[in-house]
């Protein structure tokens, strides 16, 4: 069942991208749609291999662009850079610490929309930018900062439930048991 947590990660990305296009009243109230894909990429980069991280980036990035007016592929470079950087430093990051997860989520939630907008600004038509864009960055950073530890909790439980358990070997051996008294 090792494939199941990774499959569920892709499933979560599929739902997250779709959810971004729905709940218009919530997005209208907050002033920006809610995007948690960067948090999912950070989680994948910290817990999976580079193939899964790259696959998730390609799937989520293309899915996001297909439902948006973005140029196809514009979301891929920022998402991939975040995933690659986090994966390359995977062994140095204290990934079990909540504060590390929060700060990585904040960084990714801020960097991905900023990178995408910078990339889109290089070609015409240029995207809309202004004060709401800054609010979008702040909201994205805060949301992904909160979602990243939540991803660790939820997917951690899934991994615990479905991954193969390591065989626990006891040092007890019946043939070495000291038997006291006369037999």
């Amino acid at each position, binding site marked *: 069942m090792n494939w199941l947590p990774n499959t569920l990660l892709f499933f979560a990305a*599929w*739902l997250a*991208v*779709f959810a*971004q*296009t*729905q709940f*218009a009243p919530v*997005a*209208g109230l907050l*002033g*920006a*749609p809610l*995007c948690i894909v960067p948090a999912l990429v950070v989680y994948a980069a910290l817990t999976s*291999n*580079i*193939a899964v*991280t*790259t696959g998730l*980036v*390609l799937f989520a990035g*293309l*899915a*996001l*662009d*297909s*439902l*948006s*007016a*973005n*140029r*196809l*592929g*514009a979301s*891929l*470079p920022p998402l*991939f850079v975040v995933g*690659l950087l986090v*994966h*390359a430093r995977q062994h140095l990051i204290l990934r079990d610490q909540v504060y590390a997860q929060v700060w990585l989520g904040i960084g990714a939630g801020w960097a991905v*929309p900023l990178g*995408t*907008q910078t990339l*889109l600004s290089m070609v015409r*038509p*240029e*995207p*809309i*930018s*202004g*004060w*709401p*864009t800054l609010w*979008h960055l702040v909201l994205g950073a805060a949301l992904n900062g909160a979602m990243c530890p939540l991803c660790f909790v939820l997917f951690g439980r899934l991994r615990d439930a479905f991954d193969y358990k390591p065989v626990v070997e006891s040092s007890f051996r019946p043939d070495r048991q000291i038997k006291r008294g006369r037999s």
Partner: protein
Amino acid sequence: MSKRAHNLAIGIVAVLVLVVLNLPPATAGRVKLAFAGLFLPLFGIAGSGQSFVDRASYALLTRSTLISEVERLRKENADLRLAALQAQGALAENARLRASLGWTPKAPWKRRAARVVGREPTTFWRNITIDVGARDGMQVNQAVLTGDGLVGRIRDVGTTQSQVALIGDPDCGVSVIIAETRDNAVIQEARSAAIGDGYVTLRTLQNSPDILAGHQVLTSGLGGVFPRDIPVGRIVDTRAVDGGLYTEARVKLAANLNRLEEVWVLTP
């Protein structure tokens, strides 16, 4: 091994990004809408859920509410019948005058109803997705409107869905005319992608101090995308820009872009 895997991943993503970013717009649009097909089951579930909620809310309405609503609709229907009768008279007169002048008669609008199934997932654009596509005869650049006024134009067409660029999007320029002063102007892209604000900026082709708050803005028919005389909105305030060379005005849109549920697509 790890470094080799990283280099391989970088190579794959770089090649893919270069390929998809350089696709011709028409091909990119088709690929996008084909990829968006992955979400059709979710769009279906969301649509069924919405209609279930609607039906459930209808069941909860009291009889007195329904009776008062029927009364209101009867009155509105009578008013509209009267207005339609007057309009038919004016239309016949207009057709006679056009015929006497030798002008081509105005073709009536044909329209196709569509449901809004998705909104733009970023703040970079003003965009919605509707549930009609090439299968229903949709084409790029067809005008989209509600009973209140203009909404935008079709940007990309897929088999079963289309993307609509809303007024204020950088990809949806609208040539308009001020009904009272007959000044030509252009709706510029919005400074904010938050569609809830419902305002866009208009710039006239020359300084026009006669434009006042409350004046009506209609499509001019120039540019060939939108038919003329579709209501766009009303002027809220004006100011002179570029040393008084042009007039810029804020326009409150007639259609509420934040609460779009059903729209009409004008077909040829």
